[in-house]
């Protein structure tokens, strides 16, 4: 087993272990911190796949944005020292068995040999990916208006982010009692 395979298996156990702790921990703040570790491990997995730009986006948006937002809302709404109530035993057993069954079924499906459609790329090594997934190529294709360009989804998602921002302000705004 080569060194990169060892790195992959260590990263996978890290991601899955911290993810499991994030959904089972009884203290909500610890749960958020375990989620942060899990998301950082996923960023490490993207680095391992040589997708440096996605790893950077993952760290900036998830670790720097979403987890910080979650921690803010924990401090605003919870007594973070208190334990969360334990899940109902019947529900925990039921959902655990359903989840295990789903996992086994999906793993049976994964024996299907995945192959690319159409003709294989000549000399399709995993090594020449580094040039393709560079930030320059990603930016050029994202803003290109020709075929296979992603400028329309890019604009749509900017409208979506604006709508989400206005919606957040409208939802969370405090209405004074005399205005009601």
């Amino acid at each position, binding site marked *: 087993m080569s060194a990169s395979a060892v790195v992959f298996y260590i990263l996978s156990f890290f991601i899955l272990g911290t*993810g499991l702790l994030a*959904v089972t921990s009884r203290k*909500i703040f610890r749960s958020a911190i375990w*989620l942060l570790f899990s998301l950082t491990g996923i960023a490490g997995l993207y680095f391992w796949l040589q997708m440096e730009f996605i790893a950077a986006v993952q760290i900036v948006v998830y670790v720097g944005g979403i987890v910080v937002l979650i921690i803010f809302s924990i401090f605003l709404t919870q007594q973070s020292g208190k334990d969360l109530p334990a899940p109902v035993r019947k529900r925990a057993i039921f*959902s655990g068995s359903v989840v295990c069954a789903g996992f086994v079924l999906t793993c049976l499906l994964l024996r299907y040999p995945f192959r690319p459609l159409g003709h294989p790329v000549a000399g399709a090594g995993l090594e020449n*990916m580094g040039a393709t997934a560079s930030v320059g190529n990603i930016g050029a294709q994202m803003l290109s208006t020709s075929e296979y360009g992603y400028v329309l989804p890019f604009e749509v998602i900017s409208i979506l982010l604006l709508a989400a*921002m206005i919606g957040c302000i409208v939802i*969370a705004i405090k209405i004074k009692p005399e205005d009601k």
Partner: protein
Amino acid sequence: MSQVPLSHILIVSTALFFIGMYGLFTRRNMITMLMSVELLLNSVNINFVAFNKYLYPDKLEGVFFTLFIIAIAAAEAAVTIAIIINLYRNFHSIDVEATGEMKF
């Protein structure tokens, strides 16, 4: 990284998906449910990137789907937290079973 077959990465993302599913089923606090949803979205992102990397190494479609999913997840988290704060202001609890009415 060519020593690791694609199916191992898919098994990792499947396990992460079902871990998030377990959290979504058992937790009844809105913030922890939001964390489970983030785990689900991340497992999907791993799938997109792995398929792009292993099957179509000369294309970028999986990268774009991942980027758009990350952007939508950020918007979704912001809206969810606004809803959580509004809910806490009205019910003094963010347990989904403590909120019996939709209109305030």
